[in-house]
């Protein structure tokens, strides 16, 4: 009787030690769910969702504080991916957070720029170059199109320009069946 108890107890201690070791050895840093959500978000860092950047929004979704339909740049496809990931129902983009727009980049009218550096400070991805009282310009390939630079500009010299389709970015269209011919 005693020996059986001892054996069971020692097994419990051994397994407990293994589990304890595993918990330290294989500890996951950070919340993997937040990382997964963040990977789906478009990283425009525009704040239209009401959070200061994509990562805080991902955190809020993971905590159940925010809904999945608050990201206009991610659009419908982003919401679908989030719904898939989190096992929730798809819902259309919430209107109060904005509308889905074609991908654009900011453009600074260099004739009107006064070199105040306000847009440089507003840009979340450091995509604007310039210095005080020097002309500023947007590094277009780095611009995420978040529009955060538009409001601070005192002379309204920043506009959003939709990216034109080029040979490089052109996509084959989804094959469509000619219904008249098929009928």
């Amino acid at each position, binding site marked *: 009787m005693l020996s059986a108890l001892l054996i069971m107890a020692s097994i419990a201690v051994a397994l407990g030690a293994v589990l304890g070791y595993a918990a330290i050895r294989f500890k996951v840093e950070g919340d993997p769910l937040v990382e997964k959500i963040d990977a789906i978000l478009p*990283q425009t860092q525009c704040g239209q969702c009401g959070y200061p950047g994509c990562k805080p929004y991902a955190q809020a979704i993971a905590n159940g504080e925010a809904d999945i339909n608050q990201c206009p740049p991610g659009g419908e496809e982003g919401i679908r991916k989030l719904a898939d990931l989190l096992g929730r129902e798809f819902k259309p983009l919430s209107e109060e957070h904005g509308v889905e727009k074609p991908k654009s980049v900011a453009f600074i009218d260099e004739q009107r720029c006064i070199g105040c550096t306000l847009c440089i400070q507003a840009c979340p*991805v450091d995509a604007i170059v310039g210095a005080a009282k020097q002309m500023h310009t947007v590094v277009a390939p780095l611009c995420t199109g978040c529009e955060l630079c538009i409001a601070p500009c005192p002379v309204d010299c920043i506009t959003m320009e939709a990216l034109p389709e080029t*040979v490089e970015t052109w996509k*084959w269209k989804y094959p469509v069946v000619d219904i008249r011919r098929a009928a």
Partner: protein
Amino acid sequence: MTMRLSGFHGGIEPDAHKHESSGAPIVPAPLPARLVVPLRQSARAVAECLVAPGQQVLKGERIGAPEGVLGTAVHAPTSGTVIEVAEYPMPHPSGLSTLSVVIEPDGEERWTALHPFDWRARPRNEALAHLRDCGIVGLGGATFPSHVKLGTGTGIEVLILNGAECEPWITCDDRLMRERAADILAGAQILRELIGAGRLVVGIEDNKPEAIEAMHAAAAGLDGGVAVVPVPARYPAGGEKQLIRTLTGIEIPYGRLGGEFGVQCFNVATAHAVYRAMAFGEPMVSRVVTLTGNVDRPGNVEALIGTPIEDLLALAGPRRADTDRVLMGGPMMGFALPSLTVPVLKATNCLIAASPRLFPPAPPEQACIRCGACARACPAELQPFELYWFARSKNFGKAQEYHLFDCIECGCCAYVCPAHIPLVDYYRFAKSEIWARERDKSAADQARERFEFRNWRQEREKEEKAAKLAAKAAETRARLAAEGGEAVAADAPPAAEDPKKALIAAALARAKAQQAAAAPKNTEGLSAGTQAEIDEIERRRRALGLAETADGTAAPDTPARDA
């Protein structure tokens, strides 16, 4: 020379339609009135413009410098004047425009100074740079830069020269092999030396006996190790992996390249261009183009890059009334040109005038009946029906799992499909959609990285500022202590935790001390006249009863009155 050949899986045997255009020799196309040379010769390779409108250029002069890893140079196809550098439509399924140099020929065809390159005496990397500067790209259709394909020059045992030309209607390589076999083999020897291959195998489809004969004759004069091997005519025998498998028996696995298995493959026309570039220093300014299909005089022409396609087609006779579109490339892998004003590119191997008689419109698409005919025909040994379902339902992850990117878009599956499903269109759609997502994803990753770096930078700046402030505060305190301001030291909070507060406190104490020191100064040591004046003013003030008011304006006067 006999050789054991292995077959490749699947494939089809459509009507070859080679005899229409293969009979007549290659003729040089006349100089057009205007040449439009796109600086982007393929969707991924772009060149930087080196000329300005109004500039005189000579034939073979570089007008576009290679940009990026996959870039190659672009050259003026003839001598003349650059009249414009602007966006012009390029021969691409999209019909979109790209930056092009428009040249008005002067009709003299004056060459720029050409520099032949001694590839035996000079280092290998210089030879590759020479090929890049000569704009040499693979002429089999994909226009992959040859200097990139030549790689590191180690580990390659067999160099395969691809003269299969398996796609129906096209005969440009056939004619080139018949007429310039010696030059092709000379180029192949250069490639062989650059790539360090021991064996050279030329694979030619057996429906081109004249070309095989010509290449045999040319190879006979060369020292050993050159084999000209007829391969069974079966589309797509000229696909790189298919030809490698036929000639060497090596099966290249999914997602790998021939180079990893000691085999590299070049097109015969590319070898010819390499020979011209090395022996004469000639850059790639022209290529052989097959004109065929619904035309009066089909044949092959040597056309300058940038020649408008309508000018070329006019050489094969007037446009027939029933020609409904023009295909660039073959009927299997080519595409219908969006307009005929587009120029010849380095990739333009064939132009087919199509009519409903030659290419009847496909019957309506029906539902997939899961017969598996496509899987039997697929030369890449994929499962086209699975890929079709995944592409159709936009399940791109699954499509990639089924090796969508090993699809060579040869069109065999669509050719055999009894339900007439345009399978390749679905694959192309899925591929370009996946590429677009990859681009978006890498842009998002970059944005995330930059955003995080910016946050980190702002944090760092804040810390640096705080540290600077603390240092300054400490310095001030030390200075004040040294000046013997015991009172100040007593006033300041002892060992202030917040350096900012300490600094403010120190500044305040300093100001107080200064004030205390300075306040009496302006009423000390006054001259008798000034003192009398002050007394007079004070007397008037008292008379008005102003001095009693304790507001701010009167306050500064108080010390004077007291004195």
